[in-house]
């Protein structure tokens, strides 16, 4: 259940009670912008809350998303890339694609905009305690996975999880997100990184070459009742990774997906992101493959 | 388009078309002055203007 539910006080029906307008974003300032990919289409934005106590209200879990709001342009649902253990700021990695993202890519450090959230559910961290976690990521859908990895590697959390394997791939070395962090994680012994690229002409590329599904088949540990796989990437990658995971022994309620759909309100009211009875923005975006198989494939 | 706008209540002088090649600078000056004069004669446009959304 989203974190907001547990803190919701016993409600009374009076009118003034709607102090918290769910459509009102928290004002934030762009604190830093780093270009992540060589084609400059992916930038990571670091935001700082203008009102310090908004940060506490924005307490989130790894896997949630938020609506980035630009007054006069619109809103976009983006996975939170920063990790709950990183304080004082929140980070989002944005791919330049539509009206709002293009406008955002032209904004500068110091500009004011808004963030609404945290929204949706998160990866089942309680369930994953004591289990082996395989993370399979592709392209720029690696944002909430970065949040998850940093959460798991945090000294206070690392011992809660057994072995962690990560298979992360992108089209080329220049398209990999968070390159320096990837190198750091590669050196650690308490996490097995399998970084890959579809292809490269760079002679001193030290890591794998190949699509994510075959690399997963070669490098990922076999699945059992103590192992879970979190898969997040473009639909084509998910489609070809699923049979590989099944072959490795991960059954469907051990494969966790984070879905994407067109969204506007993000709080389960505007009716647009529905897949069957579930709403991707409120009952998701995180679902197990078993749940997804019971709903129409309308995402 | 001129006739449709006129038909729905917008003075036809507010919309003008002209074929001017980039070489015909004198014609360009003439047409611009003509159009400016006509629009000034009509005064500010109050009809097909949206200051802000008139909604709930």
């Amino acid at each position: 259940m989203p974190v907001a539910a547990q803190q919701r006080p016993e409600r009374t029906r009076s009118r003034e009670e709607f102090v918290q307008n769910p459509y009102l974003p928290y004002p934030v300032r762009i604190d830093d912008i780093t270009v992540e990919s060589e084609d400059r289409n992916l930038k990571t934005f670091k935001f700082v809350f203008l009102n310090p106590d908004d940060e506490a209200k924005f307490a989130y879990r790894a896997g949630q998303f938020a609506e980035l709001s630009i007054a006069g342009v619109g809103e976009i649902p983006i996975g939170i890339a920063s990790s709950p253990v990183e304080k004082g700021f929140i980070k989002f990695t944005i791919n330049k694609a539509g009206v709002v993202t293009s406008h955002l890519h032209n904004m500068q450090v110091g500009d004011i905009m808004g963030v609404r959230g945290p929204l949706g559910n998160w990866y089942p961290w309680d369930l994953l305690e004591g289990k082996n976690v395989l993370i399979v990521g592709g392209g720029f859908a690696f944002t909430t996975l970065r949040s998850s990895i940093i959460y798991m590697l945090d000294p206070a959390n690392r011992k809660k999880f057994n072995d962690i394997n990560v298979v992360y791939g992108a089209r080329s070395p220049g398209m990999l997100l968070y390159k320096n962090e990837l190198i750091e994680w590669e050196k650690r012994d308490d996490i097995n990184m399998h970084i890959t690229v579809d292809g490269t002409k760079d002679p001193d590329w030290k890591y794998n070459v190949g699509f994510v599904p075959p690399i997963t088949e070669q490098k990922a540990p076999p699945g059992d009742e103590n192992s879970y796989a979190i898969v997040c990437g473009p639909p084509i990658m998910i489609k070809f990774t699923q049979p590989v995971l099944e072959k490795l022994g991960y059954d469907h309620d051990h494969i966790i997906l984070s879905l994407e759909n067109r969204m506007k309100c993000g709080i389960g009211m505007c009716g647009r992101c529905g897949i069957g009875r579930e709403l991707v923005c409120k009952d998701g975006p995180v679902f197990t493959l078993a749940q997804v198989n019971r709903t129409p494939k309308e995402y | 388009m001129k006739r449709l706008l006129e038909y729905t209540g917008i003075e036809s002088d507010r919309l003008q078309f002209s074929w001017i090649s980039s070489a015909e600078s004198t014609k360009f000056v003439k047409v611009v002055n003509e159009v400016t004069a006509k629009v000034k004669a009509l005064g500010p446009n109050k009809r097909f203007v949206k200051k802000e959304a008139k909604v709930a």
Partner: protein
Amino acid sequence: MKVIKIEKSQWSPGLEKLRGAFRLIGPVKEKTWHDFQELAAGQMPDLAFQNTRLSPKSLVFPQSEIMLDYSLDKKDPDCNIPKMAEKDYSPRAVIGIRPCDAKALALVKMNFDTDEYQDPYWLNLYNATTFVGLACDAPCSTCFCTSTGCGPYHEEGLDVLLAEREDHFVAKVLTDKGARLMDSAGWSTALPDAAVLDQAKSAAEGKIVSKIETDGLAAADTMALHGADFWEDISFACINCGTCTFSCPTCWCFDIQDETYGKKGVRMRNWDSCMFPIFTVHTTGHNPRDTKLARLRQRFMHKLKYFVDKYDKGIMCVGCGRCVRQCPVNIDIRNISKLMNNLASEARCAVQGS
């Protein structure tokens, strides 16, 4: 549950008294149809109608509504920071809303008033309104409320239920809000026999000739319904316009848009429809529901299956018949529900995935 008698002679003076405390809204005749409008001074609600052409949902859920406004002026300290738009939530009384539309508002409220989030715009308007319903003694041939858990004398969502008689109204007071309205109108002559409406209620229910078959839907298997073969045939005629969703009292989908006017701008919401392709299209151009079959299927699966599973309060339809009467190509929810219901009872699936 007090029952009050309002003599026809007391009716308009009572309404005049109400004008002091409420803005009065009622059905008003336009050419050959009725719509709910705010009543001008002295204007009476025209109760000689079967139902309004569009549903009264626009009273609490306007088709276009400004939610936030903001300044875009660099010199303004609050530049780019949206604020909640100023609204007038002074009390209003809706006189003459039909029981089906009132129940629809109760269903839609479940979407806008959830444990995690409450929609302030919808709820502020809803709470500012007292609903005085008018029972139906002459339902339309396309009304099928009684088979959707509703009825011509249904009370859900109403503060007062009126039944018009020859020379008086019988008013059944249902909530405190209703009682307050009756007091401020000065209508207080109690009727001893509270059961006076029961006989008229069953008479009115007897006049409903149409019905919708839904008994097998709850137990049906979602994926079997979704993959049924009748969708191509029934969606062929559909032109994917918004008529059914915009005239339907239980449809609540909306779109959020920003509009700017020089140095200031607003964030507004407008009615939206699952019938429109842009409702679900992704920025990449991928559209999970890119055929009219998929879109039509979504409308009826949501109303007759997804909603049933999610809230366990029956179907998301109150049988008002507007979509049946208004559809330009005569797509009829009663036929579609029958097809779904038949498929459901044929493939009675033992295990319904949780």
